C-alpha cells in the first residue's frame, strides 16, 4: 500500500517535477555543458583539427588588427600631427628671427611654435661623424634659424594656405609641410582597416560554416539518441542545448587558439622588428592583443560557434 501511494503521487503531477523549477534550469544547463565537453574530449583529433582551422581563420583578421594597432601606436609616438617647418634665410640675423617668432605667436591659426637656433642645429648635425667632417670644411654655419609650427586646425587645405602665407613673410627662405608621409601612412592605415574588416567578415562566415558542418555531423551520429529523447518527451531546447554548447565551446576554444597563435607570432617577430625599427631610429616594441581585444576575440568566436550550431540545428532537426 505504501508503494501504491508512492507511484501514484508522481503520476498525478503532469510533468513529474514542477517542484524544482529553479534547479531544472541549472541542472539542464550543467548537463548540456557536461555532454558538450565530453563530446569534445571523446574525439580529440577531430577537435584539435577543428580548433586549428577556427584558430587560423580567426588569427588572420585578429592579427591584422593587432598590426594596425601597433602601426597606429607607432605613429602616435612619432607625432602624426602635421608640422610646418619655417626656415629663415641664412643671412637673416637673430633680430629678424625674434621678430618672426613674435609674429607667429600672435598669429590666430598657430597653436604652437618652437624656435630652433642655427647653432643648436649645427651641434646636432655635428654629432653625426660623417656629417661633421663635411661641416668642418665649410667656412661658416650652413644651417638657418628655423621655427617648427603646429596649427590649431590641421585640415590639409588650411595648412596649405598657412604655408603660402608664411612664404610671403620677409626673410623666410623656405617653408615645408612635414605631414605628407603621415597622411600617406594614415590613408594606408584606413585601407588596412577596411581589408581587416573585409577579411574578418569573410572568415567569420567561414567559421560559422565550419561549426555548421561539425554540428551537422554530430546530429547525424546522435540520430538514435535524438529520436529516443523525443519519444521520451524531450523538448527541442533539451535536445539542442548540448549541440549549442558544443558549438559555443568550439568557438571559444578556437578563439583561444587564435589568441595563442597571435601571441606566439608577436613574440617571434618582436626581436627582429625591434632591430629593424632601431635602424630607423625608432624605439618601439611590438604589442600583442590588448586584454579588451582578446576578450572581444573570444566573445565573437564563441558567438559565431553558437550561431553556426543554431543554424545547423534549425536545418537538421526540422524534419525529425
Amino acid at each position, binding site marked *: 500500500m505504501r*508503494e*501504491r501511494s*508512492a*507511484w*501514484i503521487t*508522481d*503520476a*498525478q503531477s*503532469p*510533468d*513529474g*517535477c514542477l517542484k*524544482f523549477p529553479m*534547479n*531544472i*534550469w541549472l*541542472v*539542464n544547463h550543467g*548537463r548540456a555543458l557536461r555532454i558538450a565537453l565530453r563530446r569534445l574530449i571523446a574525439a580529440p583529433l577531430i577537435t584539435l583539427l577543428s580548433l586549428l582551422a577556427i584558430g587560423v581563420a580567426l588569427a588572420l583578421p585578429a592579427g591584422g588588427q593587432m598590426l594596425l594597432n601597433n602601426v597606429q601606436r607607432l605613429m602616435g609616438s612619432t607625432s602624426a600631427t602635421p608640422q610646418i617647418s619655417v626656415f629663415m634665410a641664412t643671412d637673416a640675423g637673430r633680430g629678424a628671427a625674434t621678430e618672426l617668432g613674435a609674429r607667429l605667436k600672435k598669429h590666430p591659426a598657430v597653436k604652437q611654435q618652437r624656435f630652433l637656433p642655427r647653432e643648436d642645429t649645427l651641434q646636432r648635425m655635428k654629432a653625426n661623424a660623417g656629417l661633421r667632417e663635411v661641416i668642418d670644411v665649410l667656412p661658416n654655419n650652413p644651417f638657418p634659424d628655423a621655427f617648427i609650427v603646429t596649427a590649431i586646425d590641421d585640415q590639409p587645405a588650411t595648412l596649405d594656405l598657412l604655408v603660402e602665407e608664411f612664404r610671403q613673410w620677409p626673410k623666410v627662405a623656405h617653408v615645408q609641410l612635414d605631414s605628407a608621409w603621415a597622411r600617406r601612412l594614415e590613408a594606408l592605415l584606413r585601407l588596412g582597416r577596411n581589408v581587416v574588416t573585409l577579411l574578418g567578415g569573410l572568415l567569420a562566415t567561414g567559421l560559422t560554416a565550419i561549426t555548421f558542418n561539425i554540428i551537422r555531423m554530430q546530429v547525424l551520429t546522435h540520430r*538514435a*539518441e535524438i*529520436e*529516443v*529523447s*523525443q*519519444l*521520451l*518527451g*524531450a*523538448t*527541442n531546447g*533539451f535536445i539542442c542545448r548540448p549541440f549549442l554548447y558544443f558549438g559555443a565551446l568550439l568557438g571559444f576554444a578556437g578563439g583561444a587558439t587564435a589568441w595563442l597563435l597571435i601571441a606566439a607570432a608577436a613574440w617571434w617577430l618582436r626581436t627582429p622588428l625591434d632591430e629593424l625599427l632601431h635602424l630607423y631610429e625608432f624605439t618601439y616594441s611590438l604589442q600583442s592583443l590588448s586584454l579588451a581585444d582578446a576578450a572581444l576575440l573570444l566573445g565573437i568566436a564563441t558567438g559565431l560557434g553558437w550561431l553556426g550550431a543554431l543554424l545547423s540545428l534549425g536545418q537538421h532537426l526540422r524534419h525529425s
Partner: protein
Amino acid sequence: MIRFDRVAKRYPPGIDALSALSFEMTAGDMLIVSGHSGAGKSTLIKLVAAIEKPTSGAVLVGGQNVGTLSRSALPFLRRRLGLVLQDQKLLFDRSVFENVMLPLSIIGFPPKEAMQRVRAALDKVGLAMREKALPIALSGGEQQRLAIARAVVSRPALLLADEPTAHLDAETAADVARIFHEFHRAGVTVLIATYDGHLFPDARTLRLDHGCSVA
C-alpha cells in the same frame, strides 16, 4: 483516461491499419490489445503516444485530443506516458543506468534523487546488478526489462507497452507480465499490445482483426 472515437489510420500507399475503432479506458484500467500480425496493434499504441496521427476520428488521452497536439505540446504528453515500443529503442552506446536515467534528465529531475529512482526502477525489473553493463551485453529478456524500467522510472500515470513479452521464454514472459501487474495494482493505467493474452487473465481484452475491433 483514453478514448478512441471512430479512429481510422491509413498509411501513405493506402494501407488501412485501423478503421472506425472506438473504445474507452478509465484511469486504473488494464487493457490487452490482441490480434494477428498486421492487425494494427502497434498502430494503436503509436496513436496514443502521438507518434502517428489518426487519418480521421479523435484520440483523447486525459481529455486531450492528441491528434491535434502542436509540436511544442508533444513533449508534455510524452512525459505523462511510460512507453515500451516493439523495437525497444534502447541506446546501445549508453549503460543500463544511463538508459534509465534519460527520462529523468529530460524532465530535469534533481540528480541525487534521480539516481535513487533509477536504482529503484532497475531493482523492480531485476536488473540492479547490471547497471554498468551496456544493453548489448544483456539477453533479450533483460533488454525487454530494461525498456520497462526506462518506461516506469518517471512514474507515469499511463503505461503503454507493445509486445513486451515477444521472443521470451514462458518463464521470463511470466516475470515481465508480473511487473505490469504490479504497476496496475499500484494504480497505473496499463495498455499492452500482445499475442500472449493468457499472461494477463484478469485484464479486459480488445481484439483487433484487420484494424477493426471484434468482440
